């Protein structure tokens, strides 16, 4: 036993330092990471918040919902932005690593189906949209449009928007191999502006120019739940709020357990009247009573 006393002492001393260090750590800057759909909105919210609260520091990065969720599981960020719900695998990983996420909804997004302005089509059903993105419809004529080849634009697979579309529009089936996988909403819009046969999907907040109007060169399609239902626009707040617009989704943030005071103050700002005014100004929809109730509960 005597022979092992030195290494045991060294091991225990090092372990003790590791353990004593544990409670001392404090993070100064709030690191936010995740959804590309949310990155512009949350950056603006963070800037406004820092302006009103000198001494606070927030850093907001994109990378996709999957990247943000992985970062909160690995404890390399404080708040994850995600435009889809967590997958079971992510919930399991979090549980194993002692991360018990709390979720907040900061805005609602009417995911918008956009085409080139020269396309005379006005609306699509969910079934038609799914068939188009699975590559089963290759010409606009098949869904009442012009005799023109369909050109698909979408997001890369680590995007929450990619997953949301796959689950809610494509019926969990694979995208067409012909889809161009773009890195962000802005790239999808740029592609569509130059392609008369194009269709793409972007967060509603990316549709508008500086004057708050839908960008020139784009047309926003109305979407119907099925062929018997009326079609609604993602620009119609009432239709998004009451669930008549079928491709709407909450935009989430997640924290590792109960948010600390600094994180809670920022989330309260985002979900409070000031933050929600910014949400609306940036083209997204404000949260309803159900989401407010969930946010309040998870902040406590």
């Amino acid at each position: 036993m005597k022979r092992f006393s030195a290494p045991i002492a060294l091991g225990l001393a090092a372990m003790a330092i590791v353990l004593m260090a544990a409670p001392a750590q404090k993070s100064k800057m709030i690191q936010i990471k995740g959804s590309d759909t949310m990155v512009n909105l949350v950056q603006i919210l963070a800037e406004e918040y820092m302006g009103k609260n000198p001494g606070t520091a927030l850093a907001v990065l994109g990378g996709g919902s999957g990247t943000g969720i992985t970062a909160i599981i690995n404890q390399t960020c404080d708040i994850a932005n995600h435009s889809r719900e967590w997958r079971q695998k992510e919930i399991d990983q979090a549980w194993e690593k002692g991360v018990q996420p709390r979720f907040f909804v900061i805005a609602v997004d009417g995911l918008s189906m956009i085409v080139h302005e020269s396309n005379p089509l006005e609306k699509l059903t969910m079934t038609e949209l799914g068939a188009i993105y699975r590559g089963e419809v290759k010409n606009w004529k098949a869904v009442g449009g012009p005799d023109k080849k369909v050109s698909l634009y979408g997001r890369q697979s680590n995007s929450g928007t990619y997953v949301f579309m796959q689950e809610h529009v494509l019926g969990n089936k694979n995208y067409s191999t012909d889809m161009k996988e773009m890195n962000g909403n802005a790239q999808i819009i740029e592609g569509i502006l130059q392609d008369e046969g194009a269709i793409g999907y972007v967060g509603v907040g990316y549709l508008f120019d500086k004057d708050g109007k839908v960008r020139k060169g784009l047309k926003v399609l109305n979407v119907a739940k099925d062929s018997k239902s009326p079609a609604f626009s993602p620009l119609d707040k009432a239709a998004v709020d009451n669930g008549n617009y079928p491709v709407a989704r909450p935009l989430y943030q997640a924290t590792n357990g109960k948010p600390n005071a600094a994180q809670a103050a920022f989330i309260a700002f985002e979900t409070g009247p000031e933050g929600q005014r910014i949400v609306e100004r940036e083209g997204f929809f404000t949260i309803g009573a159900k989401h407010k109730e969930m946010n309040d509960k998870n902040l406590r």
Partner: protein
Amino acid sequence: MAKNTAVGIILIFSLVILCNGIVSAQATTPPPQTFGTTIYFDYTSYLSKNGPVTSTAKNNFFAFRRAYFTYENKINDNLKFRFRYDADNTANLTSVDIKTGSTKKDDKLRPFMKHLYLEYSNLLPNSAIRVGMTETIQFKLAEDKWGYRSVAKTLMDGYKDVTGVEVNAPSADLGASLTGSLAKYIRYGFMISSGNGYSHPENDQYKKLAAQIQLIPLAGFSLVGYLDTEKQDKDNSATTYKLDGYFEMVKNLILGAEYFVYKNDKYLTPDQMRYDVSGFSLFGRYVFSPDVFALFARFDKNEPNNTVQNDEISLAIAGLDWAPFHKSMKLQPNIWYVTYANSAKKDDVIFNLTFFLSF
């Protein structure tokens, strides 16, 4: 015969699944492909002079230990392909000078195949099947939790390096594995493989069978049981029993423990008695600033032969992990303190400045 048939059925079943994946892959989105490289090398200085390791004239040196090159191709949302080359300079080859005919030792860094497998996800809910040269399940979890493969292999992985005793624990092997979860409280893993690891072709007709179960009753608290067995010949078998525990309930702190016993019927004392090989490891790390600064420490005790007195070897490691510029480049200074129960052997004390590069 029945066992051979069973192995064949498993492999055919796996291939059919993967072929289905390949067929469906042809009709899906073009794949995201990734390339990655991880390298670690050390500057080592012996702080003691009389131990079994440190009693050499060469008491400080640079050593290049690992260079991984990994290519991954996500063929579709379910199917992934991985190819990983590893490189080290332990091949111990002799080369011949074509001009003079003289021979010399040639120990350049040489690449070798580490991983080459297809992975099919979600055939069963929340599961993954891998076929090919794939990671073993024996200590993958321990390695993830320890987090410093660049500094030291985990207990079983590094057992032969420390004690000289083989416990048949390769990090990769040719075969098929199934891993997954049943709700968030239970993970499972099964593997059938050649048992010879990635560095040797299969040399017998016997297969290694491994099973693991991980229970996570509380968020951040895991208990893991592992068992593997392989026949060594007609009459003898080798079996590994392993128990792990992991505690991650305090933010940024990970504590882990591993214990294993290896029984090989062919391991016999001079008086023909069977003996067990065993060891335990305790480790911890605390992250002060994610991707920037952390401290780590570990204590292992190795028992190479339970019938022999005073043959235990203990290893204590302590160090820090610092990424001064970017998380892709880390400095990991660490001290190894090796003590031998045999009082004739002096302690080895070794300082390493480990350079970790990942891009």
